[in-house]
């Protein structure tokens, strides 16, 4: 009796989840459906759920009209280099806050948490002035460096590293290992789950950044995919098929990253102990 009702409940839950999942997927399906629709169908007053004709013209025009390859390369470069710098700096910094006692530690930690709360629009112009002064405008570094410090990552790393046993580090110190050596040889290998979490989130943020690159990158050839999307969307007469085609292109790499790492994501977050 009881087993049967549990089975029924499971089926109901499962059905609910699947319906919810279909709803979640629909906008993404709609991006794809619009991207392959011929221009003449897009503004029809009566909308067919499935495009009557499938065309690749939107992708082809996009390719011919815009420096698509440059946008993709820029996005990839910014995201990959950004991930390396941010994840490494976060690990080093989070480790320090978790495992060292030093004067000013709490003040510095709260200052960093304070940085998490600064809305970008507030500091957009001063930050732009500094970036301009450093000569970084219109370069990928002008996007990477100002965004390289991520308070959220430091916070997560600290949570995770608190649980690394002190004895392990002390033993290495007694063996005469240098601090940096301890960090790279002992701490990092233990931190794989949190590294996976940081990689996913940082990649996602850098890949999708908008407000900041919008002011730093003005040269079309230097644009990233979201800037390209904004350009197409804001045009006097947007070509919606092409807009959606570009949105779809921007989505694909994130999907791959996510499918590759999603297994570690839950584990990684679980491993921070969430305290």
């Amino acid at each position, binding site marked *: 009796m009881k087993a049967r009702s549990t089975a029924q409940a499971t089926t109901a839950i499962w059905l609910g989840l*699947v319906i919810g999942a279909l709803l*979640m997927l629909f*906008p993404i399906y709609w991006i794809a459906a619009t991207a392959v629709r011929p221009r003449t169908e897009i503004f029809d007053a009566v909308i067919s759920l499935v495009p009557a004709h499938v065309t690749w013209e939107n992708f082809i025009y996009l390719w011919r009209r815009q420096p698509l390859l440059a946008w993709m390369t820029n996005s990839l470069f910014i995201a990959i280099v950004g991930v390396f710098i941010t994840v490494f700096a976060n690990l080093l910094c989070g480790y320090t806050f978790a495992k060292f006692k030093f004067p000013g530690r709490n003040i510095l930690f709260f200052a960093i948490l304070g*940085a998490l709360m*600064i809305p970008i629009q*507030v500091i957009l112009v001063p930050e732009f002035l500094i970036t301009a002064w450093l000569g970084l405008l219109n370069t990928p570094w002008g996007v990477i460096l100002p965004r390289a410090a991520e308070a959220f990552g430091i916070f997560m790393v600290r949570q995770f590293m608190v649980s690394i046993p002190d004895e392990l580090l002390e033993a290495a110190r007694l063996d005469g290992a240098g601090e940096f050596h301890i960090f790279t040889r002992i701490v990092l290998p233990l931190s794989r789950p949190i590294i996976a979490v940081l990689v996913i989130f940082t990649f996602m943020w850098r890949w999708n950044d*908008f407000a900041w690159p919008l002011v730093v990158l003005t040269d079309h050839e230097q644009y990233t995919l979201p800037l390209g999307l904004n350009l197409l969307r804001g045009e006097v007469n947007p070509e919606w098929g092409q807009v959606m085609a570009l949105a779809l292109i921007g989505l694909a790499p*994130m999907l791959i990253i996510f499918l590759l790492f999603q297994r570690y994501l839950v584990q990684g977050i679980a491993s921070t102990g969430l305290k």
Partner: protein
Amino acid sequence: MGGLMDGDANHGKAALPGHRARRWAVQRQKLIPYVFIAPNIVLFTTFSFLPLIYAFYISFHDWSLIGDPEWLGIHNYTRLVRDPLFWQSLRNTLVYALSTVPTSMAIGLLLAMALNRRLPGRTFIRSVYFLPLVVSAVATGTIAAWMFNENYGVINAALVQLGLGRISWLSNPAWALPSLAVATLWVRVGFNMVVYLAALQSIPAVYYEAAKIDGASGLSQFRHVTFPLLAPATFLLLILNVIHSFQVFDLVYVMTGGGPGFSTTMVVQYIFKSAFVTSEMGYASAMGVALYLIILVFTAIQWRASRQSESAL
């Protein structure tokens, strides 16, 4: 520990090994944490704190961005206190936060609990719920505006098919914020689900076995075991979601531009408009400083509340 002394120690190291070298080693050990956090501190100082200080400085000026700043004293702050639009945008921000944070967390928790049991296709379903998070806010706003469009959007087309009337999703002040909230939920539910899922998995099974032996029902298990043990995750999500809500920009910028009327004008929107549309950078900075302080206070309150509840447990 003065830098000069370290320099001396370093200098004499070759001549006198032993005592001095050991003193240097101790000094160096003390410096290591600072060296390790230096990259982040340098980056934060250059690209966050200095700009924040500069924004604070500018908030006492009248600056059109393209001309030269002029000293105004505290005028921008007195104006802010009296500006009904600032208060309305703050209210909108609070309404937005209140309508998205608890809902997206509750849905995230429900999903996490449902997906924490063995189900066919579990991994795939989890991925689907997380998926929207990887879509950029610009793309989300674009697709949402596209679907919510009153005249050729798919949602109204569906309503018409069902024999219902069209709804002015984005041009009726009563519907614009709910539309925005739906788009927000689409994005944020997945993140909350993943964090809760992680938290659920770190609850030792022993607790549930104990609860079962005590004959606790499903609901009371949730109330007395699951929910209290999820407190750290709830706390983390609350802080992150609230901060996120106070900073929402791209989505509004693309979907409604702050309209109709002022119904979706958030503080950040108003800051942007003052800076770039009416060229009042000083006033925009004053609002920015105020918003920063508000977020800081909110977070501090949440922090204290969670500390108290933890010590009460």
